[in-house]
């Protein structure tokens, strides 16, 4: 990721009138960063993230009349990003009919709170997750949805969502456990049973890269 970056929306921006906040240039200006970041975490690379962002805004442009409350624009756009991601994913290969078995061994009993989180380590840990687990995790962290809302959106039982979320978080805890933790860091190739089957994102990247 050697690309130049924009500041994280630190600049003071004019307060838009509610009725004026739903035009596309304003939506793009206000939300392109979070849309891109969500797309980046979903797809796993910058090129696909930009394509996914563009797809999402094109859909948003057609459906902007559905957005009645400007304060919900962020959540609405993130849902569009997720929808596009899933459609691309399904097109590239069918989702498995049954739950992928994510082996999370040696997860620390107590949650360790690292002073500094290595961004690359987080990205790697995310990359190792099967799609179903990563998606639930990102819906939780990015869209800030509850397990109930995730279950409704994904049309899966709440218990499944809670299980996937917990296992995905367990994987992160395991990967980000400090080196001096009593819990051994398991070599990566043995962490995820589903990893080899999943080859996460590879098909998607091939599909989306022009």
């Amino acid at each position, binding site marked *: *990721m050697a*690309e*130049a*970056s*924009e500041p994280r929306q630190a600049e003071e921006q*004019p*307060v*838009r*009138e509610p*009725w*004026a906040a*739903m*035009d*596309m240039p304003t939506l*793009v200006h206000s939300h*392109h*960063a*979070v849309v*891109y*970041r969500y797309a*980046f975490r979903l797809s796993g690379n910058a*090129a696909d993230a*930009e394509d996914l*962002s*563009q*797809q999402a*805004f*094109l*859909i948003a*442009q*057609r*459906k*902007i*009349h559905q957005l009645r409350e400007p304060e919900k624009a962020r959540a609405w756009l993130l849902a569009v990003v997720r929808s*596009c991601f899933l*459609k*691309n994913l399904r*097109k590239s290969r069918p989702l498995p009919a049954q739950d992928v078995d994510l082996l999370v061994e040696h997860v620390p*009993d*107590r*949650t*360790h*709170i690292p002073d500094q*989180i290595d*961004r690359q380590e*987080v990205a790697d840990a*995310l990359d190792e997750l099967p799609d179903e687990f990563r998606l639930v995790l*990102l819906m939780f*962290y*990015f869209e*800030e949805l*509850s*397990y109930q809302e995730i279950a409704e959106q994904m049309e899966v039982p709440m218990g499944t969502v*809670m*299980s996937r*979320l*917990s296992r995905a978080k*367990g994987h992160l805890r395991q990967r980000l456990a400090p080196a001096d933790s009593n819990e051994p860091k398991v070599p990566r190739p043995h962490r995820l049973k589903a990893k080899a089957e999943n080859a996460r994102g590879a098909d998607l990247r091939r599909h*989306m890269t*022009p």
Partner: protein
Amino acid sequence: MKKIDQLREQIDACRLDTDDLSLPELVELAVAVRQDREVADELSRSHAFDRKICEALHDAPVPLGLADRLTAALQAEAAPAVALAERSATNECDVAGRRRFGRRNWWVVGGAVALAVLVVAFAAPFVVRSVRDVAQNELSGDVAGWISSVTANKWRPITTMPKEIELDSAVIGKALQWQSIQARDHSGWTGEVTAIDLRPAGQPRAMLFVVRSSARFNVPPTPTAQRRLALSHGFAATAWQRSGGALLVLVVEEDRGQRLEDFLRRPTQA
């Protein structure tokens, strides 16, 4: 520790800074947090971990110029995208996927836009010297831009509005506040645009735009709710220009119940 293991899924499902503990599936956790210090501490650690992960996930560099490229793509794709949407309303992502530009096309579009801007900037002084006739569709585009330029924190008391800006006697409604619109994207004409708010904040909006310009606008000399500008997103607007006077554009939030008719006197009333 065993208790924590048993409650792990509930702990992980409980979002920070929410009242998730009141959710039915987390009732066991809610009880345990009240009764067991160890569980409460683990939930607290889990939330601290969530905060750190959330920060890390949101910390991804955004490519420079992304917003500009997205905006250019939206403008370039607007017409074909609408046509495609009408053809296949249920297949949006697929259509968008086929129609989306590649990154190489971004540069082509960007270059074309930049070239067009240069040409317009160079030629504009020669063109604008003559009086510009502005068609209704051009004006509609301009009005859409003004609407999006209205800024909530720039309203000023109506008592401070320059006296040369006048409401038309055909308009019903009390001017409450005003602001100048920074409208740089007029369709080839120059002028000053002032927005006058006719409804208190929080209510469906009604607004009068007063435009002082040397351009000639292809609009009627008196207002009529029947002759409307083509606006989207639930707005209704009508424009008129009295002889030698300013262009006036009345805009209301029609989808929230405002009607143009309610803000215009009938000809016999005016």
